[in-house]
């Protein structure tokens, strides 16, 4: 089997994986705080450059496979909900939450109060505030909650806590962990400057339905091309090689 056959298959498989990413974006069109992911491809050289190639291994193909997916960090549009514990960050900051697996970051600001009146996410993870250099959970006393644009929570005018909002340098690898949470390399977070926290609003998903539809079209047509290449290579090269040549 010549390597052209495997290259075409690798391209086809990469398109199928990219389709999974695009489908996940479209499925999360109404998840608040969701950041769309865009797959990117990379070339994988079958043989090292300059290596002496044996007559049996003349692979000249650079396989095109999926290199990963990049998170689109632009913010989605803000929607007013009227709930006092719904928060949205206008800018590129993230809320800090404490999970059983460690510190995570999220943009999904649909928080609620648990039985102990601590501010938690929808999964029950505690939202963290800064107290000096430590990060502590937030306990909200009864009363009218108000959150100022710099993240300070106060109840009936009395200061309760200041939310720990972090920013990342452009290009930091922020990986989605699922459940609206992101993991970033330890130590890469910086305290946010100039963030604007809006109370009573939620950030909607930043996916772009037009781009999703165009990506689907492109993926479909390119996958079609790969499958044509596969069938041509099979019918015109591999099958004669395996069936006709031995008959000599």
């Amino acid at each position: 089997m010549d390597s052209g056959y495997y290259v075409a298959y690798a391209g086809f498989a990469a398109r199928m994986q990219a389709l999974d990413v695009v489908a996940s974006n479209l499925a999360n069109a109404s998840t608040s705080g969701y950041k769309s992911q865009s797959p990117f491809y990379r070339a994988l050289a079958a043989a090292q450059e300059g290596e002496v190639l044996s007559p049996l291994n003349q692979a000249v193909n650079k396989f095109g496979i999926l290199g990963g997916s990049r998170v689109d960090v632009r913010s989605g549009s803000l929607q007013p909900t009227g709930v006092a514990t719904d928060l949205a960050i206008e800018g590129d900051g993230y809320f800090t939450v404490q999970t059983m697996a460690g510190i995570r970051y999220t943009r999904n600001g649909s928080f609620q109060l648990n039985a102990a009146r601590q501010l938690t996410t929808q999964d029950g993870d505690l939202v963290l505030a800064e107290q000096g250099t430590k990060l502590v959970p937030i306990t909200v006393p009864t009363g009218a909650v108000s959150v100022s644009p710099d993240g300070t929570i106060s109840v009936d005018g009395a200061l309760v806590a200041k939310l720990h909002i972090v920013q990342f340098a452009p290009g930091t690898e922020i990986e989605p962990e699922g459940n609206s949470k992101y993991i970033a390399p330890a130590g890469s977070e910086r305290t946010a400057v100039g963030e604007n926290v809006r109370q009573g609003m939620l950030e909607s998903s930043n996916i772009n339905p037009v781009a999703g539809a165009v990506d689907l079209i492109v993926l479909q047509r390119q996958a079609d091309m790969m499958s044509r290449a596969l069938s041509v290579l099979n019918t015109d090269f591999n099958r004669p090689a395996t069936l006709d040549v031995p008959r000599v």
Partner: protein
Amino acid sequence: MIRALYTAASGMLAQQMNLDNIANNLANASTTGFHNRRLQFQDLIYQNTVVPGSAATQQTTLPAGLQVGLGVRPASSEIIQTEGNFDATGNPLDLAIQGNGFFQVTLPTGDLAYTRSGAFHLDQNGNVVDEQGDSLTPNITIPSNALSITVGTDGTVSVTLPAQIQAQQVGAIQLATFANPGGLNSVGQNLFQPTTASGDAILGTPGGSDGVGSIQQGNLEESNVSVVSEFVNMIIAQRSYEANSRVIRAADEMFQTVNGLTQ
């Protein structure tokens, strides 16, 4: 074909933002002192297959290059400064500006903000404040036993007190203008804040030669949104969106034809 797909996608995105802007204008068609915004578009970079002006031979130059554009992007949304119609309400504290100026108010944070909406009220201490309670700056206090309040076209505020024939002056309203009012930052709540693009506020006395306009008491300035123009813009945005989606469909069909070449 792929280039056409992404170009058409950029067109659809631009028209989506256009529609968002039109929706905001229409939603604020009855907001006092609202100024509508108009989106302006720019073409994106061009891919140069042949740079214009390149030499064909040693003596001749090619008359035209071969450049293909890559789409459109919304560039800016400028505030249209036309004046809205005046609505005569008869309220002594409803003020409208005939001309270019803005009222100056102080926010609870201490920053100054500017507004065209002249629907003022009195707070519990008699200060003139807007609908959010932000006080008019320079501050004007109306005594609690005032019988009537008169605001002249030059901004002079005078009140008549009981048992007095002569009206007493309690203050003067000043209006602010900007070198580039289109560059003001809209912060919501009918308020604008100055930016580096708009220039600093220049305070002036209304009705005079400072060019800040005059104050009409008892009137409110309605929104300057023209519902008819917005509807026309909406039709154009919708048809452009459809046209771009046709391009995507055509590019898709061409791509399909290419794939059908091998059999």
